[in-house]
Structure formats: C-alpha cells, structure tokens
C-alpha cells in the first residue's frame, strides 16, 4: 500500500502520513508526561519562606542572671542564637547554627569557647572558627544592655 505524502512546511521535504502520526502521538505522549510531571514536581518544592523579619529581640534573661564563663540559647525569630558571657564579663551573641552542617552549638566553659558536639568543631569567644571542620565564623549579633535588659540585634 502506498503512503500518502505531503511536504513539511519547515524543511520542504516530503513526510509520510505514518511519520506524521508517529510524531503527533510521540509529542502528545511527551506533552502528557510533562503536563503530569510539571505540576507534581512544582508541588513538591516548598514555597519560598519569607525572610525572618526579626531584627532585634529583648531577651528574658537579665544581665545579672548570666554568670561569667557561661552561655545560653535564645530565640532570634525562627533561628536559635547563642548568648555568652566571657570569663572577662563581656556579653556577646552569635547565630547558634554551626557553619559546618547546621547543628546547634553550645558554650563550653571548660575550654572557654564555643563548641559544636556534632563534629567537634570549635569557635573562639569572638565566634571565629579555630579547630575542627567548621569553614566559617559564627554570624555575630550586636548586644546592647539597657538597664539590665539584654537586647540582641542584627549586626
């Protein structure tokens, strides 16, 4: 049986009906797959979370309650922060998220520094990464003490 032929509008070459139907079916099936996969893939990607609008927080803890050579975690919006009081009495605050793999760090009074127990990363009292795997210093926050109240804000 001879196949009826027409001419491709793009290349000017003749195309058979069979090839045209193959192309149509292939494109339709391809289109159907994309029409199903695209919404599913998009659905699985979470919508972008808005940047934390918190720029400053007033902590529950009073300066008098924070002993030298100690530290504690506080909420900075959705993020954990670390407030420390150095052995010399200075008050400092950092993001408590380890720059290595995101564990929450803690103050280590024995070593007088900041420690991440997940992979034994260590930071100085200034938040600088000094040993272990952390690649960057902790993000510092500004600390202001107003009448015994501690206010932490983005540096």
């Amino acid at each position, binding site marked *: 049986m001879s196949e009826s032929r027409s001419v491709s509008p793009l290349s000017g070459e003749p195309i058979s009906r069979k090839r045209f139907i193959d192309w149509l079916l292939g494109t339709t099936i391809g289109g159907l797959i994309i029409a199903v996969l695209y919404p599913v893939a998009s659905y699985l990607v*979470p919508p972008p979370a808005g940047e934390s609008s918190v720029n400053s927080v007033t902590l529950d803890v009073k300066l008098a309650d924070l002993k030298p050579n100690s530290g504690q975690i506080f909420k900075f919006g959705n993020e954990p922060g670390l407030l420390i009081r150095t052995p010399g009495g200075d008050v400092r605050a950092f993001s*408590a998220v380890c720059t290595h*793999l995101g*564990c929450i760090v803690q103050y280590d009074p024995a070593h007088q520094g900041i420690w991440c*127990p997940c992979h034994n990363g260590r930071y100085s009292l200034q938040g600088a990464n000094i040993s272990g*795997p952390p690649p960057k210093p902790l993000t510092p926050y500004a600390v202001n003490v107003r009448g015994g109240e501690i206010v932490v804000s983005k540096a």
Partner: protein
Amino acid sequence: MTAPPVGRGERLWAWVDARLGLSAITPLIRKKRVPVHRHSIWYFLGGMVLFLFILQVCTGVLMLFYYRPSANEAFDSVQFMMTQVKFGWLIRSIHVWGANLMIFVLFIHLFSVWILKAYRAPREFTWFSGLGLLGLTLGLGFTGYLLPWNTLSYFATRVGTSMATVIPGIGPFVGRVLRSGNDVTGATLTRFYALHTSVLPGLVFLFLALHVLLVQQHGMSIPPGVERKSKGKVRSVPFVPNFLLHDLIGWLIALATIAALAVFIPAELGKKADMFASAPAGIKPEWYFMAPYQTLKYLPATLLGIPGDAFGVIVGGVLGVVFLLIPFLDKPRPDGTHRPVWRTVAFATLAYLIVFTYLGLRS
C-alpha cells in the same frame, strides 16, 4: 489425560486452578534450583533481607494505628504507644531492631555479591537494582529515624540534610526540598513521614520485583573459582522445598534474635526534640552512617580550595558512581579469570567501614 480428582482437597485445588490457572506456576517453581558448593551459605542473605523487609512493613503498618505525624504530637504519640498501648513497646522495638538487622544483613549480602563477583554478565541489572534497594533502605533508615521527633533524631536530620546542601550548584535547592523549607521543622517531619511510609516502600516493591525477577531469570550466580574447578558441573538442589526450608530456618532464627533483642534491650525514645536547644554532647548517628560521619570529622575546613564537607560529599558521589559501574570495570581476562584488584578494593572498603565505624562508636 490425567485422572479426575477424587479427594476433597484435590477437587478444591482443581476448582481453584481452573479459575486462577495456578498450575502454570508449577514449572517455574520446579525450574528454580540452587547450586551447592562451599560458598552456598551466602545465597541465604537475599531471602533474609526480604523476610526482614516484610517484618518492617508489618510492624510499620501496626505503628501507623497510633503514630501522629506532627511536630507537636509525634513524640507524645510514640511515648503513648510505648507506655500505654499493650505490646506497643514490643512492636516498636521489633521495628527498630529489625531495621538495624536488615541493614546489617543487606551490607553482608552486598559484600558477598561483590567479593564473589555475582555481578558478572548477564547480571549487571541485578547489581543495579540491588544497589537501588540499598539506597532506598538507607533512605528508609534516615527518614524513619526522624519520626519519633526526639533530640537525637532532630540533630541527625539537621546534619544529614545539611550534607545535601553542600552539593555544589543544586545543593541549597535539594536541601530546601528535602526539609520542606530552610530548616528542619514540623514540615520536614510531615515530608519524611510521607517518604518513609509510602514513597520509599512503594519504590522498594518496584525494585524488589525487578531484582527477584532477574534472580529467577538468570539463576543463582556461581563464583568464578567454583565454576572453574567444577568445570561447569555444579551440584544443585531444588529451591522448593529443599532451599526454602533452609531459608525458613534462617528466618525463624532472625525472628527469634529480633524478639530477644526487643525484649531485653527495648528501643529507647530519648527526649522530645527542642528546636531551640544546643546539640547534646556525645551525639552520634546510627551505626550505619558512622563511617561517613567519622570521615567528615577528620576533613579540614577547606581542602583543595573547596569546603571540606563539600569535598567529602563530592568524593562520596564519585565513589558511588564507580561502585555502580563495577560490573563494567571488572572485565575478565581472555582466559576468563579476573584481576585481583576489585576483590582487594572490596576488602579495603570493608576494612575502612569497620575501622571508621569502630572509631566513631568509640569517640
């Protein structure tokens, strides 16, 4: 022509067979034979993993009756199951111990296949589907670990998902999709619950079907050394009933071991995860992630100009691809023998895993 069925049992079988065509399977069952030689013991491991997986599905389904997948309720619902529900502690302990034993047996299965070169042509796809099952099983271990929502599981997930974010280029996107946001939160728990209870088990069933089908099609692989010595004449026994009965003994031993472990060392629950508390000292992942965990500890902050953790993840990824391609890399010599290099690599990998797991457990 066969004689008409006489007994009640035979008549019932004939009735069922006429409707379901079960007798068509009989030749397939008869065809399956298992070679008998000095390495035959390793043939039991695949069936053992399958048995343990079925046990995980059964205990997992039972836990679904009480578990509530939200950050506020997950821990309390598991605690309720462990303390108030009759035998709840037993079901969960069997699930936890069964998971550990399944991954342990799966690793032995993998190394026995690797060392005995069972991936040789035409079994390349059996190897691929097996590695797919290994990946899915580790995924099940990782996602299931978060579900009790305790301190350990919370930090293990923070670290594990952070490892995905260090992949160059697509890392942050992959991390966000895995966590359902920028951080490990209740949204991550819901996502892991969906993965652990439906997506990953579904994929396991698909890969398992392919794996078992290929084992059936190609038969059991005979190690090259045994094949050479026997000159192609290896004794074999029928799978049904000889080998299957031995399999059953193994499964009963596994069940008894898990039951004993569950009774004498029940699964712990720990403390409820607190997203605003420091990681506790001495925190460690499960033993099957211990070797990479310990390796990450030794990597410096930067290596060859890139962050140490990114370096570790890239090297791990490249090694994973090499591992997948072993059936093509380990080509036989013209005389049919194999170079010893891949067996040496297998033993070296095994030594690395054992030493680093030990160092991690001890640290």
